């Protein structure tokens, strides 16, 4: 089975640009998560979807960050407009909310975003 796929792996943006990061979860997984990872703040939850419904969004990220789940096998994270402080690694993860793998999340390789 394919794992979680994220594209692009690296993104460089100018301040003020709009960028869209993409994620394909593991086939059959109902839950999808977006995280931001920085050295200072560590791992922060941006969004959590269950069966395409938004269950939780990181309150601090609402204004310029918008995650969408267009179908069960594809999600996007839009940052608009970007700021230099958005430079980080953005991780996507998926899980199946039941069975022996409950509470286990499968992570993609991440997208490293640099905002100049």
């Amino acid at each position, binding site marked *: 089975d394919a794992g*979680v796929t994220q594209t692009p792996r690296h993104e460089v943006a100018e301040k003020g640009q709009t960028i869209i990061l993409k994620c394909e979860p593991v086939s059959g997984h109902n*839950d999808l*998560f977006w995280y931001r990872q920085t050295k200072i703040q*560590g*791992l922060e*939850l941006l969004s*959590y979807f*269950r069966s395409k419904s938004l*269950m*939780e969004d990181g309150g601090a990220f609402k204004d310029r960050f918008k995650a969408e789940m267009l179908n069960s096998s594809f999600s996007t994270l839009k940052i608009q407009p970007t700021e230099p402080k958005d430079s980080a690694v953005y*991780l996507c*993860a998926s*899980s199946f*909310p039941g069975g022996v793998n*409950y*509470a*286990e*999340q*499968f*992570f*993609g*390789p*991440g997208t490293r975003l640099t905002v100049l």
Partner: protein
Amino acid sequence: TQTVSQSDAHVTVFEGDSVELRCNYSYGGSIYLSWYIQHHGRGLQFLLKYYSGNPVVQGVNGFEAEFSKSDSSFHLRKASVHWSDSAVYFCAPMPNYNVLYFGSGTKLTVEP
């Protein structure tokens, strides 16, 4: 305030040594507790989890963790480390839904 604490930011050991990475949490009630590993430049990988039963749980690659209710801890251990175990390790309680709350991580360096 509900928190998860990994007191050691960096741990360095030699290949073949045993290691314990510490995790303390303050979430109440019965929760899932798990550990994840992140090699440099890669995403996180699940290692093991605990919810109930035997407080010592086994994970992949010889890792195990022990839950202690009295200490509010879930420490990760390995009896004999290999250079490939060098990575950052994250403790992650799951107090509700399927949402994980990650600790700050412990960077393990295994010297040859």
